[in-house]
């Protein structure tokens, strides 16, 4: 489903961020991408939703070859990739439900379907009762659940999470990881970048460990 081959990324010759990264992900797999700050986790995530292009190497996601994908097709790739960030990235003047519905609106789904799916996903992540609140009225944990709901609601090929627990306390972090697990059981493929190696290990899933831009470990 996801194939990353010999990826290199550098900003100028003297500053390589990723070197020779190769890995694959199967459909329905949940993988942790671990490493210290500056190891290249976020850069790798950005390459996977084409926020940036690799300096060399190839990335294939489902039917998309990211190296040759024309610029105008990028939105269509992104509809197949749900992304969750540390800072939630919710639109401030839209309610939680409207933020989630946005992902369905941009793909032109009918209104009835949007309402139904938004309700289902908000119930799944446990914030249906907060659906009419604006991001500033939500706690960090609730905002991250809304962001996760938005990433999941279109049933993308893969969900990418970049330090999703970075702004959460321990209890909320555990709840969020449990939610990822729940969503993974429903069949979604998930790649979570986190510096919390110990927490990742607790889930007994595959771990890709980055050090200084190199893939040091690929273990289950």
């Amino acid at each position, binding site marked *: 489903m996801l194939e990353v081959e010999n990826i290199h990324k550098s900003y100028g010759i003297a500053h390589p961020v990723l070197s020779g990264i190769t890995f694959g992900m199967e459909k329905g797999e949940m993988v942790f991408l671990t490493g210290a700050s500056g190891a290249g986790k976020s850069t790798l995530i950005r390459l996977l939703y084409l926020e940036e292009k690799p300096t060399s190497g190839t990335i294939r996601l489902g039917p998309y070859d990211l190296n040759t994908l024309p610029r105008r097709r990028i*939105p*269509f790739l992104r509809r197949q990739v749900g*992304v969750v960030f540390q800072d939630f990235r919710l*639109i401030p*003047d839209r309610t939680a439900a409207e933020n989630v519905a*946005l*992902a369905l609106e*941009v793909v032109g789904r009918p*209104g009835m379907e949007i309402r139904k799916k938004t309700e289902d996903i908000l119930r799944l992540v446990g914030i249906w009762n907060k659906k009419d609140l604006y991001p500033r009225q939500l706690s960090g944990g609730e905002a991250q659940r809304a962001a996760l709901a938005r990433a999941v609601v*279109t049933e993308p090929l893969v969900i990418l999470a970049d330090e999703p627990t970075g702004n959460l306390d321990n209890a909320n972090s555990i709840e969020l990881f449990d939610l990822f697990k729940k969503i993974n059981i429903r069949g979604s493929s998930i790649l979570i970048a986190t510096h919390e190696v110990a927490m990742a290990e607790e889930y007994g899933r595959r771990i890709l460990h980055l050090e200084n831009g190199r893939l040091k470990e690929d273990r289950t």
Partner: protein
Amino acid sequence: MRTLFRIMVEIGRSIRHELLSTLGTLLTVFLALTVPGALWIISDNLARTEREFKTGLTMDVFLTGEPSPERIEEIKIYLGSQSGITNVKYLSSEEALYKMREIFGLDMVKGLEENPLPASFVLEVDQSLYDPPAADRVKAEISKLPEVEDVVFASEMLNRLKHIIRSIKILWLAIGILVAFSAVFIVANTVRVAVADRRKAVEIMQLVGATRNYILAPFVSLGGILGLSGAGLAALFLGFSSGFVSRHLVKVVFPDIYDVMAFLLIGLLLGMFGALVATGKHLKI
């Protein structure tokens, strides 16, 4: 329908966030479009005046006395043979006085002891005599007749009117181009502020797979609405002003509905173009 609703909601959000700036832009676009609009109306009315003037334009040949009927016929033939003369009519001094009475009323001629108006020939002319040198040649030719005292032809005035119209048209074009640029700039600036204000929302939309058109539509529509509203306000203002001037000063003909629609369309397109300039430059999509 849903897309239209979404665009309207997004426009509403942008206006709510930048209400004062949006109103300021609307006012500025209105003022900017009023100037070329007014010049358009002036130029249009002068061109109409020129047409009306041309329709009634005649060359008047004033005589020293009343010629005999035979001589009148001879002169008529001679005048009719001149280049650019399409019709010749004799006007006796009696007829001239009668005409004057008709135009200015009985009081005007009541005190006159004798008729001061000379007999004349009224010559209708074609376009070739709108050219002053050609008119001068014919005037000189006619003046050679011994009975002729004076030849009066308003070609100079027509020529001056033509120059004025041409100058106003050039001014209108120049100001129009300047105003078009400034309207585009003003709208672009407002839309740029709206884009900056909505940057986070735009980034998130891009993240969830919104296409370029999906993101641009509300901003371009906002620009179009600002341009259209500014042009609409300018058209209303000019309509009322034309009515006022017509009632109190001089008759002004307001452009017809098609011209007004063209004016509104220009406003709409300028606004949309301004928005495209702003979004193209400030949104990397």
